[in-house]
């Protein structure tokens, strides 16, 4: 059934289906770069609070420059929703952290380190947050004047994710494709576009066949560093392609011809920037130390030696400033390459089949609150 879409078009005497339509991404790269640069700087001066606005701007940019069948999507979420969601999530998380602490003490009294498994409950909560954050993003995604929406239960999803996670752990990762297939099926079957219902037809076995040898190579990649980006890039490319091939919404289906080596360039560019920035930062730190030594007018060993703590404070300040600049640059690079470029690279390979099924869809579904995004932010599991 999964192979139906690969049948050559027009080989049957039946009326030929419409040719697949493409997804076009027309976003201007330098505009995106300027946006994230400005955003990263504002994030610094606002101690990170600007992240809600930046993430909203990024999504608005990516969504509105993505056109399916000639019509661009739109992201209608706003930063204030995220901020409020974050504050509410915080108000809920604080008592949970406290309860976690108190329960932890009771467990520890019973047996040393018995509270360690409690940490897993935070992981479960993170999965819940991931599901709810996806619901928020989806209900803010509009195409042709109709929004996407989602039902389903975050806790059921979390339970699935945990159970499969245990299996993946026990099988040393072999079960990963089946976990992803199961979770994706749950997410897509509860995804709707107006009155069309989504589905996911990818199965774990297909994914496994495409990537099992990467699993064998993983220990090697962990030992031999330069191999790791290749293995990871191969894995991600296969995962994306398998995921896109499986997506259905009503009668509409997607397929992708994403080549297996699609991400080599992206990852190596990021690593290259990383190395360059590390060299620049090391040079900066060395320069700062040299300057501090010179100003103190003492021999090197004495200036850096004991008893000179007070004199090293300017040096510390210089290092912190350098660190912030480094964080800023890394932030920009990650967003340009791993969000914008990856988005563009994946989308240019996507084909949409039978888009006519979405020509007259009735809008439905309610807006979801941004609380899920708040949890995801508070627990540090936020995605796009």
């Amino acid at each position: 059934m999964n192979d139906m879409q690969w049948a050559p078009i027009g080989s049957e005497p039946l009326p030929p289906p419409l040719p697949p339509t493409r997804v076009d991404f027309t976003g201007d790269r330098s505009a995106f770069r300027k946006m994230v640069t400005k955003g990263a700087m504002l994030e610094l001066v606002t101690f990170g609070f600007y992240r809600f606005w930046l993430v909203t701007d990024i999504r608005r940019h990516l969504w509105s420059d993505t056109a399916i069948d000639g019509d661009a999507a739109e992201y209608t979420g706003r930063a204030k929703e995220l901020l409020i969601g974050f504050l509410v999530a915080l108000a809920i998380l604080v008592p949970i952290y406290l309860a976690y602490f108190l329960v932890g003490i009771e467990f520890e009294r019973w047996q040393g380190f018995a509270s360690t498994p409690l940490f897993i409950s935070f992981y479960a909560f993170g999965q819940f947050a991931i599901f709810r954050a996806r619901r928020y993003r989806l209900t803010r995604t509009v195409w042709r004047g109709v929004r996407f929406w989602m039902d389903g239960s975050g806790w059921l999803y979390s339970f699935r994710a945990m159970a499969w996670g245990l299996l993946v752990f026990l099988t040393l990762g072999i079960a990963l494709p089946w976990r992803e297939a199961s979770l994706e099926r749950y997410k897509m079957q509860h995804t709707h576009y107006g009155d069309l219902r989504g589905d996911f037809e990818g199965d774990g076995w297909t994914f496994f066949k495409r990537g099992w040898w990467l699993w064998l190579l993983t220990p090697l990649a962990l030992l031999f560093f330069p191999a790791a980006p290749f293995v990871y890039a191969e894995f991600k490319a296969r995962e994306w392609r398998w995921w896109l091939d499986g997506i259905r919404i009503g009668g509409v289906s997607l397929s992708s011809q994403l080549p297996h080596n699609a991400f080599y360039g992206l990852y190596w560019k990021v690593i290259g920037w990383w190395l360059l920035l590390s060299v620049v930062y090391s040079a900066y730190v060395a320069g700062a130390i040299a300057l501090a030594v010179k100003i103190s007018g003492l021999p090197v060993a004495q200036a850096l030696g004991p008893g000179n703590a007070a004199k090293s404070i300017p040096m510390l300040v210089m290092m912190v400033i350098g660190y912030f600049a480094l964080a800023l640059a890394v932030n920009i690079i990650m967003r340009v390459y791993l969000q914008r470029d990856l988005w563009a690279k994946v989308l240019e390979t996507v084909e949409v089949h039978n888009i006519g099924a979405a020509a007259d869809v009735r809008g439905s579904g309610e807006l979801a609150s941004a609380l899920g995004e708040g949890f995801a932010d508070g627990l540090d599991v936020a995605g796009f």
Partner: protein
Amino acid sequence: MSELSTEAPAQSGKPTIFFDGVSSRKRQVTLTLGDALEIAEEGGTPVSWVYADIRRADSPAGILRLASTSAPSLARLEIRDAALAADVTIRCMRLDEHQTSRRGVAKIVGWSMAAAVSIVCVVLFGVPLAADRLAPLVPKPIERRIGDASEVQVKTIFGSSGCEDPAGKAAFKKLVNRLRDAAGLDDDAMTAGVLPSAIPNAFALPGGKVFVLNALIDKAENPDELAGILAHELGHLKHHDNMRGLIYNGGTSFLIGLLFGDVTGSSAVIFASRSVVEASYSREAETAADTFAIDIMHALGRSPKPAAELMFRITGKEGGGLASILASHPLTEDRLARMTKEDRPASGPPLLTDTEWQALKGICGSGKI
């Protein structure tokens, strides 16, 4: 406004598309720019948008996408013809009213700064104050529960059997009791024990528990050296340093995490700033415990100096550079200098007899770690 000329570009240029916000059907429409914007589909009911309600929606370059605050929230009008788009734009006075302006960004920056300043003030002044005030108020049973929990952890690390040589234990008890009486701690408020370990150290846990690791006793050359260190730990108990630290660390971690959020994408800044802030707080507590130890040793008529000498033998000279900003304890050489200043000739009887001291040294049995 010339109403006659405005209809022409819609037909000549690229199509204008309307989505009514109820269905995803793509409607090709013609616009009439009258008193309001008239949107007419062939064979459909015309829709009219008041100019003042029209807002710009996100769109790719080359398309003007409009929404109206009085229409269904997802209704969209897409004008692809540049001339027509310009015509419509000049009529809509409040087109960009809802976008984040420069002033909006300045407001975000201003409020974030205010929030950051208030968080920093709370970390520097509020949390220490709260910790100092709250720690003595924590009910004894809760403190003991936390202490019990940490004791279980400690025993998991160092082995569950403490050192139990009877003569050694009696000597240890005598030493601890003399210090406790001088310190004015309640009888039932504290327990003390020796644990086998190769690490020379001693520590206090919440709920009045003091543990000495065996290697410290091995390294000590006389009872005064050990007594000074025990007195220091009693100082921690007396000042409720454990509970204070717990409240303080919990509070600062939370607030600093809140402050930085994920600005750096890693927790390095959080970790670094927490270490600096917490270390300075902990150094204060250690200095106070040293003061307490000095007072006790004086009250017993013994010198506090030997304890500092023992510490110095263990750690050596520490000092200097960045390490001293991050250190949780004052530098050993500074402590030695301070206790040397407080050195007085012994005026009281020795704390343990020679036999007792020898017994204490063998409390873990000979040959055991």
